[in-house]
């Protein structure tokens, strides 16, 4: 969690310094969700994410170097500078991308899971999406298919109460999203998305069910983003007091307190974590700075495959 938080704080800084351009969506406040959910996955599993996916990519083992280089638009980036912040990809990490079409990753996850099922592999496909996606037709098509075909997908809804500036209650007739999912005939339950242990336990339980071939599970992680939707958002749609209230539930601070009280964590350990993270990020920035831009002659490369892969 600390690693994601500091990485993204650095991104925001670099954005202000114009080193990173385009859209930048920060996950700050929501870290417990990805950390908890990913903890239940193995390297063999698959992950499909949205445009708010720096944390997911980091947790999946995509190197901080290649993520940072991607945001710099360098060819050393995980998508060779063609994707940017919203489209991190890493085949080796089985990270099937940041998808910037709301709901657009869901059908992919269904298909990835179908391929595993048809080939009798035990993998789970975790698909992350926001509460905004729940209003899209694609969401409903995919919930139906996942349940109908008993596909091994872990549906991770990151309900941060807003889709850009639209509050959940202004967009949904039924704001209890796990009820919607349950209507498709799959186990679905809400999770305290600010509590990393709760997230981890829920994901563990759900993944176990999915892996054993019972079909999909839906987890509604109730969480909150502390920052704006993207770097362009003046946040006119929500009350500062509301943000402050949620910040009291900061997943990092609360977990730190808990561990300290339990005697598992102390200042020295915390400092070591911070130092390690700071050094990793510093290296990532240096790596990105030193990276190179792909020559213009390569512009159309990868529009189509040059050769047949096997």
């Amino acid at each position, binding site marked *: 969690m600390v690693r994601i938080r500091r990485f993204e704080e650095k991104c925001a800084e670099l954005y202000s310094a114009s080193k990173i351009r385009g859209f930048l969506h920060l996950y700050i406040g929501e870290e417990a969700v990805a950390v908890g959910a990913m903890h239940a996955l193995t390297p063999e599993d698959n992950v499909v994410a949205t445009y708010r996916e720096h944390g997911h990519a980091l947790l999946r083992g995509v190197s901080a170097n290649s993520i940072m280089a991607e945001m710099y638009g360098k060819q050393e980036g*995980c998508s060779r500078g063609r994707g940017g912040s919203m489209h991190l990809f890493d085949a080796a990490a089985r990270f099937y991308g940041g998808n910037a079409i709301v709901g657009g990753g*869901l059908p*992919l996850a269904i298909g*990835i899971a179908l391929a595993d099922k048809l080939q009798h592999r035990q993998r789970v496909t975790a698909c992350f999406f926001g509460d905004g996606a729940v209003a899209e037709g694609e969401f409903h098509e995919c919930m*139906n298919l996942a349940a109908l075909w008993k596909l091994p997908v872990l549906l991770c809804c990151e309900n941060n109460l807003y889709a850009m500036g639209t509050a959940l209650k202004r967009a949904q007739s039924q704001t209890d999203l796990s009820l919607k999912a349950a209507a498709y005939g799959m186990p679905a339950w809400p999770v305290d998305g600010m509590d990393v242990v709760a997230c981890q336990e829920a994901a563990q339980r759900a993944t176990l069910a999915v892996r054993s071939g019972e079909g999909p599970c839906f987890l509604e992680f109730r969480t909150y983003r502390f920052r704006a939707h993207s770097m362009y958002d003046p946040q006119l749609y929500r009350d500062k007091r509301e943000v402050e209230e949620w910040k009291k539930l900061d997943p990092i601070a609360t977990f730190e307190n808990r561990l300290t009280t339990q005697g598992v964590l102390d200042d020295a350990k915390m400092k070591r974590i911070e130092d390690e993270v700071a050094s990793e990020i510093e290296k990532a920035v240096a790596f990105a700075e030193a990276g190179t831009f792909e020559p213009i002659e390569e512009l159309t490369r*990868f529009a189509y495959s040059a050769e047949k892969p096997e």
Partner: protein
Amino acid sequence: MKITYREAIRQAIRDALIRDQRVFLMGEDVGAYGGCFAVSKGLLEEFGPDRIRDTPLSESAFVGAGIGAAMNGMRPIVEIMTVNFSLLALDQIVNNAATILHMSGGQFNIPLVIRMTTGAGRQLAAQHSHSLEGWYAHIPGIKVLAPATLEDARGMLWTALEDPDPVLIFEHGTLYNMQGEIAADAVPVEISKAAVRRAGTDVSLITYGGTLGKTMLAAEHLAASGVEAEVVDLRTLRPLDTTTILDSVMRTHRAVIIDEGWRSGSISAEISARIMEGAFYELDLPVERICSAEVPIPYAKQLEDAALPQAATIVATVTRMMGGHG
């Protein structure tokens, strides 16, 4: 061997299923119903419901699922009933299938084939009759095929499945019952080249898919009055085989493009522009286009016929062109 276009496609699908365990067919009514155009009839019994997979009416989800499955090691053939319904899956086709290879810096291939019907001529009215393959040909990252012959119906699918990139195959609805002779051992065909279906010296008739038959008919008719038309079957709308088009125009110095899509912003406009760019000084006359009338395709027979390119229109157009500069 005498078979129909429908049977040629069925054989191609069956072949693919036998040859490669990664291949499966998925779409609305492809299984129990036998395919809404009876293309996949009998395949469910032979291959079972895992490989002949009926889907709910969820175009976006099952097309997207095809993309995901292709990214994870399968070779899906996704069938969409008609191009009109593919619009519900446009997001997946345009924003995912066409972009992911490039956006991922070359990491994820999408070896997916999407088949759908296109075209008018069966009095099905506007929502079942449009020819939108030209739209799809606008999009980099996908390939667009339009088999007009039995050999292509039989052979293109295999080549498309071998292709690492997403391929869309448009089958014109009026072709399914077309019958003809085909070699029992018909082979996979090249999908990057146009074909000259009839050699000629006076005018190039450039077309594809459902209008190839009408164009061949017109060419025969013209021959009777001494005009030798060369007929170019594009076969692939993206990438366009500009070389074959230009070579033909260099021989004939006149060109007519016959396209069942609408004229404005169409594939015929693109071809016309390429001829202008590549063979302007070879032309005796401006390039002509015979396209569908700019209306939603109507139901009533006489209106539908009037809306579509017809052999008679092709003959009249060429005759006028020849008369002008004969």
